[in-house]
């Protein structure tokens, strides 16, 4: 949708189809990774947030450390995993968009889990107690907490999306930055395309792609912010 909304590019030294397909790869890979990551992160955040166990502090620390994990290292590890010589080699994932989804999933999950966990634990005990007192089951209480923590969780998803769509180190390694001869991107997303264009000295194209990336992040923030503003009333 954001892709179709791009204005026709006239008089610029590059193909609009090339740019469109790059943006499409970025959006589809990062959105898929963030949705999958959210599906995993939320239950984990709720489970950790709701239960008391030995080593909970350690688990939280590990999650928070994961937020700052260097993306090139993630890329290397994922490459070794999906390489034909690696444990997942039979799935034939190396240099595919799916491999990019995996590495962005790994990068986004600690962010979404960590921020959601903070949001969930931030919900005041009195609200939980009230939900229990009103005869709620564990599920009911969880739903109440999610409702109370929804802004924090949304922030978490947003932060995960920001981490996923703007990182370049891992997707360059596992995706291979492939575009076909006709200029259709396969595993080339906005960030890897920027490194390539800069390498070739085509700074205009690189700058243009950079502007699109910033615009996407701002747009998502704005859309989410609008919804959030409505929900606050």
């Amino acid at each position, binding site marked *: *949708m*954001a892709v179709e909304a791009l204005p026709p590019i006239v008089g610029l030294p590059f193909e609009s189809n090339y740019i469109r*397909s790059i943006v*499409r*790869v970025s*959006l*589809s*890979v990062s*959105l*898929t990774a*963030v*949705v999958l990551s959210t599906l995993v992160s939320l239950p984990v955040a709720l489970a950790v947030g709701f239960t008391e166990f030995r080593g909970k502090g350690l688990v939280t620390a590990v999650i928070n450390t994961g937020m700052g994990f260097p993306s090139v290292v993630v890329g290397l590890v994922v490459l070794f995993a999906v*390489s*034909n*010589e*690696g444990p997942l*080699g039979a799935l*034939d994932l190396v*240099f595919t*968009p799916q491999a990019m989804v995996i590495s962005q999933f790994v990068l986004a999950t600690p962010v979404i889990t960590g*921020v959601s966990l*903070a*949001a969930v634990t*931030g*919900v*005041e005990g009195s609200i939980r107690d009230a939900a229990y007192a009103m005869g709620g089951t564990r599920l009911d209480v969880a739903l109440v907490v999610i409702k*109370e*923590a*929804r*802004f*924090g*969780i*949304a*922030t978490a*998803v*947003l*932060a995960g*999306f920001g981490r996923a769509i703007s990182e370049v180190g891992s997707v360059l390694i596992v995706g*291979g*930055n*492939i575009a*076909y*001869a*006709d*200029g*259709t991107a*396969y595993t080339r997303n906005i960030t890897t395309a920027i490194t390539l264009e*800069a*390498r*070739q*000295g085509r700074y205009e194209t690189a700058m243009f792609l950079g502007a699109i990336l910033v615009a996407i992040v701002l747009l*998502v*923030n704005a*859309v*989410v*912010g609008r*919804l*959030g*503003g409505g929900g*606050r009333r």
Partner: protein
Amino acid sequence: MTIQRRDFLALAGGTATAGLAGCTGMFSGGEEESGGNNESGSDGGSIAGQELVLATTTSTYDTGLLDEVNAAFEENFGTPVQAISQGTGAALETARNGDCDVVMVHARSQEDEFMRNGHGINRRNLMFNDFVIVGPADDPAGIGGGGDAVGAFQAIAESESLFASRGDNSGTHTAERRIWEAAGVEPGGEWYLETGQGMGDTLNQASQQGAYTLSDRGTFISQQDEIEIEILVQGPVEGGPEILANPYGVLAINPAVHGDVNYQLAMSYIGFLTSPEGQQVIEEYELDGQQLFFPQALSEDPNFQQYVPEGWQPDDGEGGGNATGE
């Protein structure tokens, strides 16, 4: 809880959010596109959904030759080529992991080692161009106009003029080390900068810092409008010394070592590139009116050395499959 809410809003950098709804909406849009994209990637128009993965050097990609050749291959065989452009060392490493089907590189010593280790098979000479020594117009080491690459490197080292090295085990880096060796210089010190990046990046950095560097002619031509350095020592294409020759080879990944590779398609690719049609595409590819690569595969005279490691002899004890046996 209003307070907690504010905390999180602050965390978002003042952005109020209700992201799940928004993100799922966007996701469904993105997913449709992703589906379409994957189809065109694996099925659309290709032979029985086959894919050919090529690991190659930055120079073939950055000059634009690769798109030209691969478009012609796709037209003939209906299979799109997925090209990963790395340095020669990295491309061969990708191949060693069985992650590509065919490699096109330009460092004979590394190709030979790759074949000796059993990873590569059916190597062909593909094309050549040459390296040029480029540097700032004011030429602090005074190497301009000379036809002596080794002497130029010695002069650069003696005057300690800035030199930008690829430093990435690429074909160009391999050639550079060969020249330093011939010059009897062990490069190092503050004047010797390793960029660790592709040729394009390295040319940009050399231009900005007023450094000398060794470049393949193709990448230099494709970028000369953007940079402030010029050719100071020509390669053999323009009558320069033979040590600046830059031959490209293409070889298939050995399917007996890496069972997952698409060997038949790899051989189709090699077959196309070394055919009169493929060689013509290379011959006719021009940038700014200049031919960048010179085809080398067609010859009436047999050249057996292109199939084996350089200098290989049946009796040198390495040919496990040769007729004499051991």
